[in-house]
């Protein structure tokens, strides 16, 4: 019997760390640009750390999915495509509305949490790996 089925505990711990870094960086950037007037070098360092947390989260997700069986990989791929489609569609709509229709400006980084929110939304709806 194979009892070594991949555990997702390292993924959960890693994800919490990445999200903690992401949120801390957002807070620091807001504080650094308004209250503390941090120098450009410091602001860039924080921004790069934030971007690294996003890349790290995707690397962790990729590694987790790569260890799963074909069914889990199949439904995860469908969920990611559906979530990316929803997020990009919304981002494009908001972008043109912002540029041409005068809707309030939204920060581009919001796409990242929106994407993972969309993954959460479509997950219970996509349970079939077939086309």
């Amino acid at each position: 019997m194979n009892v070594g089925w991949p555990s997702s505990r390292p993924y959960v711990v890693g994800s919490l760390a990445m999200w903690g870094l992401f949120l801390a960086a957002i807070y620091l950037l807001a504080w650094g640009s308004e209250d503390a007037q941090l120098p450009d070098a410091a602001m860039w360092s924080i921004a790069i750390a934030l971007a690294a947390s996003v890349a790290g989260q995707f690397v962790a997700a990729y590694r987790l999915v790569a260890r799963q069986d074909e069914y889990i990989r199949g439904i995860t791929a469908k969920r990611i495509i559906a979530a990316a489609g929803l997020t990009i569609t919304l981002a494009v709509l908001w972008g043109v509305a912002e540029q041409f229709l005068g809707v309030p400006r939204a920060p581009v980084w919001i796409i990242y949490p929106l994407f993972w929110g969309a993954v959460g939304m479509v997950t219970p709806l996509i349970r079939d790996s077939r086309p």
Partner: protein
Amino acid sequence: MKSRLRVLRAERGWTQEQLAAAIGVSRQAINALETERHDPSLDLAYRIAAAFAVPVEQVFANPHPAEKMT
């Protein structure tokens, strides 16, 4: 794809977890196969057949009728 997975498993008194562990997949994968929400790869189909010690056609019936090449 239709299969006799649930029947074969019941005949041996195995749970989905036990079968999943035996062939190295998740319990969700076994459930998806039994409820026709996943079509197995050839490799997985052979691993399942080997776990039951039966030919693969006894687990998964070939859905494509044989055709003679002319």
